[in-house]
């Protein structure tokens, strides 16, 4: 299955804003983080399709994962 991963703020490395990750079997948000090389404690806002989740959340084909470090304040 294909998952779109969106990176924001300091998670944007080498100008990569988003990428598609392909998983053969089931995958969780934790697997996405592992593949992205980001530790869960670095993530302040973790969204799947715009809804806040934690890393045990199971993913489905086509899901969008958005990752933000601690930012905000308006």
């Amino acid at each position, binding site marked *: 299955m294909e998952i779109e991963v*969106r990176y*924001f*703020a*300091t998670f*944007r490395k080498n100008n990569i*804003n988003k990428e598609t990750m392909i998983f053969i079997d089931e995958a969780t948000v934790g697997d996405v983080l592992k593949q992205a090389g980001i530790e869960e404690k670095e993530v*302040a*806002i973790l*969204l799947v*399709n*715009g*809804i*806040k989740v934690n890393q045990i959340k199971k993913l489905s084909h086509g899901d969008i994962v*958005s990752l*933000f*470090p*601690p*930012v*905000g*304040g*308006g």
Partner: protein
Amino acid sequence: MFGYNGKVLRINLKTRQIATEALNMEDAEKFIGGRGLGTKMMMDEVDPQVDPLSPENKLLIVTGPMTGNPVATGGRYMVVTKSPLSGTIASSNSGGKWGAELKFAGFDVIIFEDKADSPVYLSIEDDKVELLPADDLWGTTVSNVTKKMQERHAKGCKVMTIGPAGENLSLIAAIMNDEDRAAGRSGVGAVMGSKNLKAIVVKGSGKPPVFDKDIINEMNKVQLAKIKANGVTGQGLPTYGTAVLVNILNELGSLPTNNFQLSQFAAADDIGGEKLAENYLIKNTACYRCPIACGRYVRIGDQEGGGPEYETLWAFGSDCGINDLDAIIKANHWCNEMGLDTISAGSTIAAAIELKEKGYIKEDELDGLKLEFGNGTDIIEWTKRMGYRQGLGNKMAEGSYRLAESYGVPEFSMTVKKLELPAYDPRGVQGQGLQYATTNRGGCHVRGYLISPEVLGMPEQLDRFATEGKETWTKIFQDLTAVIDSLGVCLFTSFALGAPDYADMYNAISGTHHTAESILQVGERIWNIEKMFNLKAGILPDQDTLPERLLHEPIAEGPSKGWVHKLDEMLPKYYEVRGWSAEGMPTEEKLKELGL
């Protein structure tokens, strides 16, 4: 009590009489300073039914006990008056260095009464206070006035001024200080303009007395460590400023787009904090004694200056469907030069675009300019026209409510109590919506920033769609914010600090004996006196509401799809936790309990 100078400067602009009075310390104890004390003074001195642009309204500049003192962000002041935009009490907060300088000059408060016969400005150099002619400054922009004042007056003087928008009595005019810091909201710039007062230049050489330096040092060590350790105040705001919120709210499907017709903007990333940092940012900047430094200093072409905040990127950006960051940065610059509130200005353009698209505004009103969602070509020109009241800009200068009302369709104005809503679609953040509906000055996010728990997860994560318990969160946030605004520190410290810290701060500087509980009660007192001012001004609880669109039109797409705001469910519970009647009026008992 320490931390205050104990002095009020009273200026009658008509008679040109300048008097110094003692600050009423009993009131200072009950209302702290800034927003609280200013509202108490307005209650005592001004009939709430006054026409806000008449000489009978007063313009108060009120510092807090922390302003100019050695605490984190201790440099803020409040402009308190009756708002010509909303008819409510107005208290607009600003940072920069101006407020601290007023304290160094030996004053806590300035009260302006009546109206000058011709344009004047006030010069303060410690106890030398003069009203001087401002004919040569009238009609000119904020940077021009600032430069002239700095050439003419003492080295290091700080300048507060209105731009052409305030002079032309635009109801969305701001008061600017230190060039790009704004007491932005509620049209306070128009009140200053109505008094023929162009600027206040101040230079001081003193320091307010403080309670105990050792206790202050200890308190600062603890609080600065908390600010540094907090992800938002320690890293997020310094690196990206507030602008980084564009993408967050967009990903949540709560970024108002095309005048709140949509809640996601396909091109959000083009106007986000990341793009701003990548392509325009030169450095971050800080207000007086601020360890956070969220300010943006940007370059565009050969022009440098203060950059847009999140709210501005939204108002001129997604709310107008515009992804042209160059144009937004320039529009922000022109708001600063004209002295316009960027939220109200951008949001009024957005409303105008919808009115044009729906056929209410006719082509021949546009003087050939474009007014279309997604077209950034003329937003700079519209901004100037609002400031100068030219063409359709004359109607837009009155804000979106009066603009839409003039075409018979006020429902296209996204306002609460005629003040333009900020950049969070409340259908996707229910607590923030309750906050908007109940805020004493109208559609405002900085009277209780529920986004903190509902989106950022601080101090704990709340379900943003839930209504349960939000009334209590709203009340506590509103009361605490009233304290922060009255102390004279920045609301952004509250990501890292809580009520016990603000009590510690006040105790260390002023020698008070507050606890978290007692200081929150002061906040509640301030909230209630503001409410009482509004009620006396005729702003009744029927105005504790949201635009029809947000109550009845479900969000069409994205992660917040299907949601409307459930104000009906929440409002009665809110009145109950406030200890008010079911009709939303403070009860006799409540007022007595608060010593009002």
